[in-house]
Every structure is written in structure tokens, then in C-alpha cells.
């Protein structure tokens, strides 16, 4: 799922400094599941901003509301009155939600209250690990179902590099991040498919990734 983290309070305060009325707009989908921008987090941020601006003698009128899915117009319609009555919207959605709001309500600026982190898997309570970089040309069939694009610090396709020691990637200071190429090796060995690692993977076609420009899927069979 898409995961995100709240920006530092000071940064959010900087973005709303000139406003008198502020709307904190949560999102009920991905960011709710990862505890970053749902109804509860919107409410906490609103309270923090009320207290902080009051203490500073610059009290702002802070409203809060949460829509079910901020990346789609129809779900945002219910927030129209809130948006009308505010100077600025602080979106607690991912980057897609923030942009949808700016597009849908162009008369008001929507600023991001979160930093969108990636497409991650919740691996234990409170931990989300990156699993996909949406490169647009999935290689998981070659690598035993473990993604070297997202999980290798160098996105190697012919790994492992020389920095794999004791099954740990040299890049991470925490020394706890496994070398995904070590994992791929052992996975393919267990599956009896080490032959897959003997093939030379030529330079990848990155055109399907962000490198080819903004991506867009058009499904003619679904269009009205």
C-alpha cells in the first residue's frame, strides 16, 4: 500500500503562516491504514495547531474533516463547504490526494501535511518496508518474487554486489537491512532455479518507469 509520514509540525506551521482559517483534511484509505493521515491523525494535528497558534498569540481557526478517498473527485465533493470556508487546506493524504484537491478546488491552495514514502508492506506492528518502485516492467518472475529494483540500494539486476556480507547490505547504517540479492540467491536455490541467476540481464528498459515521463494508463475497454 501507499505509506506516508506526517511532516514536522514546524514545517506545517510554516505553510499555513499567512492563513487565518485552516482546514485539516484527512483521507480514509491508505494513510488511515498506516496511521499517518486518517480521521484520528487529522484530529490530533488540528488540536496541536490550535494549541500552538494560541500559545504564539496568532490563534487560527482550525477545522478538521476526513473524506473516504482523497484521490477521487466524487469522494471530495462532501468537503466542498469546508474548503469554501477556509484560507488553506492541509491535506493528510498522499501526494495524489494533495494534487487531486488542488485540481478540484483551484481557488484554494492545498498543501501537503505528509511526506509520501512509497509502496510498502507492513512487516510488523509499526514497520512498513518498501517493496515496489512501480517501474512499470515487473521483474519478479526472474528474481524469486523479491524485487531488486526497490530493495537493492543500487537497483542491480545482476547482483549481488561486493558489499553483501553476512547477508546484510553494506549501505544501511542500521546494519539490519538484508541484502535482497542474498535473499534472491537463497530463494532461487531453495526453489531449484539457480539457473535463472546465470543469465546476463542486459540494461533495463526504464522507459516504462518515471524516466519515460509521466505515466498514464488508458483502458479503452473501460472508458465511457
Amino acid at each position, binding site marked *: 500500500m501507499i505509506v506516508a509520514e506526517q511532516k514536522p509540525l514546524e514545517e506545517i506551521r510554516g505553510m499555513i503562516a499567512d492563513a487565518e482559517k485552516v482546514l485539516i483534511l484527512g483521507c480514509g484509505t491508505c494513510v488511515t491504514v498506516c496511521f499517518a493521515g486518517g480521521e484520528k491523525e487529522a484530529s490530533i494535528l488540528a488540536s496541536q495547531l490550535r494549541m500552538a497558534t494560541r500559545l504564539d498569540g496568532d490563534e487560527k481557526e482550525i477545522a478538521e474533516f476526513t473524506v473516504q478517498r482523497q484521490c477521487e473527485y466524487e469522494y471530495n465533493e462532501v468537503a466542498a463547504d469546508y474548503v469554501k470556508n477556509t484560507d488553506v487546506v492541509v491535506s493528510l493524504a498522499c501526494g495524489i490526494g494533495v494534487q487531486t484537491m488542488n485540481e478540484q478546488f483551484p481557488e484554494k491552495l492545498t498543501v501537503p501535511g505528509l511526506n509520501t514514502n512509497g509502496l510498502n508492506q507492513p512487516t510488523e506492528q509499526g514497520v512498513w518496508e518498501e517493496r515496489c518502485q512501480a517501474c512499470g516492467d515487473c521483474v519478479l518472475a526472474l528474481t524469486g518474487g523479491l524485487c531488486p529494483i526497490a530493495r537493492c540500494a543500487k537497483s542491480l539486476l*545482476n547482483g549481488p554486489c561486493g*558489499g553483501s556480507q553476512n547477508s546484510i547490505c553494506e549501505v544501511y547504517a542500521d546494519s539490519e537491512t538484508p541484502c535482497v540479492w542474498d535473499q534472491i540467491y537463497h530463494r532461487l536455490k531453495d526453489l531449484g532455479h539457480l539457473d535463472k541467476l546465470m543469465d546476463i540481464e542486459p*540494461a533495463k528498459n526504464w522507459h516504462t518507469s518515471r524516466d519515460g515521463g509521466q505515466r498514464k494508463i488508458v483502458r479503452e475497454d473501460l472508458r465511457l
Partner: protein
Amino acid sequence: MSDNDHGNGYLVGSNLEKALKAGYFVATGELGPPQSADRDEIEHKAQFLKGIVESVNITDNQTAVVRMSSISVAVMLMEMGIEPNIQMTARDRNRIAIQSDLLGAHALGVRNLLCLTGDHQTFGNHPQSKNVHDVDSISMLHMCRDMRDRKVFQCGDAIKGQEPRFFLGAAANPFADPFEFRPYRLGKKARAGADFIQTQIIFNVPKFQDFMRRVVDLGLHEETYILGGVAPIKSLGGARYMATKVPGMEVDPEYVERMRNATAGLPSIKEIRAMDDPEEVKNARRARKTAAESEGIKICVEVINACKEIEGVAGVHIMAIEWEDAVDEIVKQCQIGPKYDPARQDA
């Protein structure tokens, strides 16, 4: 090794290629460009390597620290009569920039190239930079061989005119995990185009012997020339650092112990600090330095001599970064390289 011999029996005809094909036990050197635009520093370091090694590797922003570009240093070396071996990493350049730089490098006279993935920028002085990794070391080799032997760019377009021709090298780390896959990875590099391999620094000879046995069993020593990586240790601190802080490196505890023992009979650093006479301090420091350096060189010579006895090893790559003046003593003691190899004096 490619079959395309360009008419004269050699792929490119560099000193390195010629010495390897002649069957000599070769020695290559290494030079780290400065973190400045200072040409004098290069000339100072390079003079120690002239005439004693086949070619000199020039690192490409090693450990992701900004340094003078490898190709420009190569030109300075050639002007001094030293054959360069440029290193090229996939970290900072995409396939467009790599191919462009290689067209230029060939035109400038460079003939040896080592293809590397590159150290991650986290370790360097610009950890906030964006990395590239459009290709990796293996797909880079593949691309460079296609430019040389098929006269095509990576995209498939024909190179109309002179193709960039390099004697292609790659790195191998026998000490990284998973150990049992490392010989196969070397084999992939050979199949992708590596004419020669330079390994990570060997401070664990038995493990390297084990690695080479596997390489020879796979017949890879007949597909590519393998140079064992070696380096002289300068001090006990240096030995400890390599043993504990450098990922992908294994140091036999015996070497650390020997570096410690090298200065055993001499005044300790603590005792030197307590000395009053500046002359006495200077002499004591010098004695410690000489003793440590001499042991470091001795270990390096032993490793090289061990490499000579290992089947499939075609030479050594001596990485005496910031200690270039030690190389002459090392190759002299080992009797290898263009200057000291007895087999080459008759030639």
C-alpha cells in the same frame, strides 16, 4: 576473451593486454585522483608507478567522494608515459553519458577500462545526491563489448566510424556473500565481456585459494585473466580499519597481530607522548613507522608470492593508494612487472 582481434592478434594492444597474452605474471597499479584540480599531486604520485607496472587504474570518484575525473587523469598519465586503466562506475552516469565518455576516452588514447557498479553515495561526501544505476557492472560490460566487437551502441544503432575499443575489466569480490555464488558471478562478468578481472584486496589467502579452485573448476581462468587484488598495510590502525570497517573485506587476524608485533620492541605511542626531547620523539616515531611499513610490505609480498602459486591467477593488482612509493619495493621483492620480472629482461 573476445575473438575479435582487430587484425594484429590483440583486441586493443595495450601493455596490459600484451603482457597478459604473453603469459607474464603481471602487476597493475592504482592511483586515486585528488579532491582538487591539482595536477602536481597526480604527477607526484604517478612518477612512483612509471615503468614498474603494466598499467595504472584510475579510480572513478572512489567511495563516492568527488575527485578529479578519471579520463582527464588518464590523459595526464599518458603524457607522462604511463598506461592508464580508467575505472567507470554506473553510479553517476547513465548509458548515454557512459558511451559518450568512452568515445572520448578512446579518441584520447585510453585502451583499458574497468567497469564497476560503484560504491553507494551514502559512503561519500554527497550522501544527498541522486544515484543513477541505469546499468550495472555486468550490463555495462555487455554494452562496452558490443561497442567494440559489434560496432553498435547500446540502443542497437551502428557506430559509423571508429568504434571505442577497450581491453575490458571487471571487479570480483571473493570475500563477499554468498561465497558459493561468487565464482558464478565472475563467470557472468567474463561472459558479458570482461577480458580481465581485478579482485578485492586479498588478506585471507586460504579463502582466495578456495575461491580460485572453484573458478578453475568452472574453467573461468581460461575465459578471462584474473588478477588478485593486493595492498600493503601501512599501520596497525590501517589493518584494524580494514578488518572491521570496510564492508566486503576479510582480514586474517594473523596479519593484524603481525602489524601489532612489528612495533612491539619499540617505544609505544603513549611513551612517545611522554618524551621531552623533540629529536627523540621524531626518531621514535620514525622507528615505529619504518617497522610497521616494512612488515606491511612483507605481508603484501607474501600474498603476491602465494598468488603466483595459485592456479588460474594471471597477476596482481596492487592498490597502494596514498602509498604509491611502496610499489617499487613490492614488485622488486616479488620480481614481477616490466622492470623486475627476470623473464622479461631477456625479452
